[in-house]
């Protein structure tokens, strides 16, 4: 029994939290009022309905949309929401478990740091695989 336990522990120690696809690309205009910065846009698909619903009533705001792996339950997402909500520059946070995405609305004063966002997810045990920023 102890050999089996030891084997499982050794095998599991090789598990790595993968943080793939985090490459910063240049910003460019999307619509008249929206700028987008792709980090791994190919993996992040935000529908217009989701975006419009989240951004309703917001202005002069940067909206960060994050593709997340491992966010399978409310408890998984709750720490993420609490951490971002503690940031005074965050106006709103929303989570979609179904789509595996988190949307964060920052004031324009905030210099959005992709590594900081990535590390917030990592420190809560989830993996951010793609990030898109829009300005409204």
């Amino acid at each position, binding site marked *: 029994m102890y050999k089996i336990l030891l084997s499982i522990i050794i095998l599991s120690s090789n598990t790595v939290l993968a943080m793939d696809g985090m490459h910063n690309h240049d910003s460019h205009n999307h619509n008249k009022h929206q700028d987008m910065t792709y980090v791994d846009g190919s993996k992040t698909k935000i529908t217009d309905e989701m975006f419009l619903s989240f951004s309703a009533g917001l202005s002069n705001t940067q909206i960060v949309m994050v593709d997340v792996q491992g966010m399978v339950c*409310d408890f998984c997402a709750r720490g993420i929401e609490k951490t971002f909500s503690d940031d005074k520059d965050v106006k709103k946070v929303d989570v979609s478990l179904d789509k595996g995405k988190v949307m964060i609305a920052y004031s324009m004063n905030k210099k959005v740091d992709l590594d900081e966002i990535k590390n917030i997810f990592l420190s809560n045990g989830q993996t951010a695989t793609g990030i898109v920023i829009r300005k409204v």
Partner: protein
Amino acid sequence: MGIINKTIIILLLVVTADSAFSRPISWSGGSTIMYKTNSMHSSYYYHYSPSYKYSMGLEYINNRHFNDQYINLKTTYLLGRKNTKKSQANLYLTGGISTKSKNNHFYGIHGDWETRRLFTSFSVINKDTDVKDYTENELTFGVAPYLGEYNDLHTWVMVKAKKDTINNNWETYPFMKFFKGDSLIEVGTKNSHWDIHYMLRF
């Protein structure tokens, strides 16, 4: 190696036993309160997670059957986690020591795999006591009948199978798990007695 380091390692090697919850560690800086009651005993457990990789806490146990009260110091360490788009898998090392006597402690491993629809877990716990040392094995399987969104009420239909090396036979019983917001409750029946667990995270 200092005494503090030795103590930490020993604590990390000791295991928490009947953690019925799929997430024995909270988010970084998160706290958890648990209450559990069944036909034999009731317990209150508080743990704090300095990071998502481990938690440490104290559990007060009132064993009504033997009229015995004691405190366990418990810890859980995340050995590995695998996140995918649709699932999360974890392997934990957990354990504890007890004020009951210096010979009372427990240690083992606990693993789970979860999607939004399915949940499975296993645990193997060695318990050392003054009277007898034994091992508890546990398997859990659950299905979510519907998929709730964030902040909705989430419901799981679960079944648990347990075996220890004293009775050496598998015992299986169903239970329901509900959670919404920061609260989770499990309700089941075992040997015609209610088995209730409540958890609050903050």
